[in-house]
């Protein structure tokens, strides 16, 4: 089972060898009541300690594949199921310092059955989570 908040504690980690970090990984629980084909996911904005990583700069890992924001729009078959987490891969040379960080996400979801003015709909979350090393 996943943690209840969209932001997951476990899996928050630096990417790359210890002295050559290239970025970090953040796991986000699918925050909608039904699964969504990836073309309905308009990306995830991430803010760490006030430093912004826009949705268009991040990459998204689902079902063993990594997508750019543009590639999400083209993926109408692969889905982000309920009860699963997506890995958001964020470029940041040097990675994040070990320790506790204040992390915010904004998950942008396009619901075709919402009035056009509400597409995409953002889902926010914000909490302290920890990079171990």
């Amino acid at each position: 089972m996943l943690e209840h908040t969209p932001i997951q504690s476990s899996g928050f980690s630096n990417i790359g060898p210890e002295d050559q970090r290239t970025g970090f990984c953040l796991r986000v629980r699918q925050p909608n009541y039904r699964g969504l084909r990836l073309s309905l996911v308009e990306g995830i904005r991430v803010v760490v300690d006030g430093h912004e990583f826009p949705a268009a700069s991040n990459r998204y890992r689902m079902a063993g594949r990594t997508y750019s924001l543009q590639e999400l729009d083209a993926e109408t078959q692969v889905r982000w199921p309920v009860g699963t987490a997506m890995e958001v891969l964020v470029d940041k040379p040097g990675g994040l310092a070990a320790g506790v960080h204040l992390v915010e996400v904004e998950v942008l979801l396009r619901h075709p059955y919402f009035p056009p003015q509400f597409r995409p709909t953002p889902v926010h979350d914000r909490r302290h989570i920890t990079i171990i090393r």
Partner: protein
Amino acid sequence: MTAQFKYGVSLYSYTDDFGTVMDLEDAFYHASETGSTGIEILGEAHLPAYPDIEPAWLDRWYALLDKYGLEPTNYASWIDTDIQNGRDLTAGEGAKQLALDLENASRLGFRFVRPKFGVIDDELTPHPIWEGAVERVLDLAAKLDITIIPEIHSPTPIRHPVVDAYIDFIQRTGTRHFGLLIDTGIFQDRPLPFWQHETPEMREGAMSFLNGIRVPVEQLAEVIEYTPFIQAKFHHIDENLHDHNIPWEKVVPALKSLGYSGYLSSEYEGKRDPWVAIEQVRRQHALIRKLEREWEQAAGQAGREHDHA
């Protein structure tokens, strides 16, 4: 005694619990413990390999239905008309999606499929492909004996061109496999709390329907013949068994008077703190059963008084 309601639970009620504190069997257990006989699912939420169904999962589905004494009621599906930025589904593609969900629903033993089409305006007018898509799968629905029931959902009231168009469709095609699903949210007569990031400006404007669109329960009479299934949408019932938003004390007598004997399938849509939905759904069942009992006692009383007159 008049025809009784059938009681069910939609697993939508357990949104956010599902996959964090509850698995499929837990959900069956909680639904069954309400005294329900029916279970409603969302295809693209509760089928783990959606759109596929793995054989082992299918076996487990039927084993759980048997163990918990539940029958499949309604299967919710989506037709994602706004499928990519700048590209809409064609009617043929919409029909293909709907056919897939009809086949899935049939394999799982459901008798109803609720398709949710994308919309084109604030009135929730469905994308114009809806009619062509549904018409293309009417034969399949007949073959599988499944009724396709789009949802009448707030802010769309009963007296509305969207509903008229559905009824025109039934009359034009003569189909017995298309009808209406009434979501009791249309009867909401007191405001909901604000949602995450909702502002007073939003509530005054596009979100004003969250104050309740207050459809008069008497209007149920105008559509009841087309309505084989009802989702008992609600948001909060307190410790005094008092619902803060939906006037069950009007809805239940209206449905009883019309002789409704289909399902009331609980759709809890309130605070998503873990485990809260379990207790809320139980309160709704206690409340509706109490109102049904009271209506029957009053009707029995009236009947006896009539005999003595």
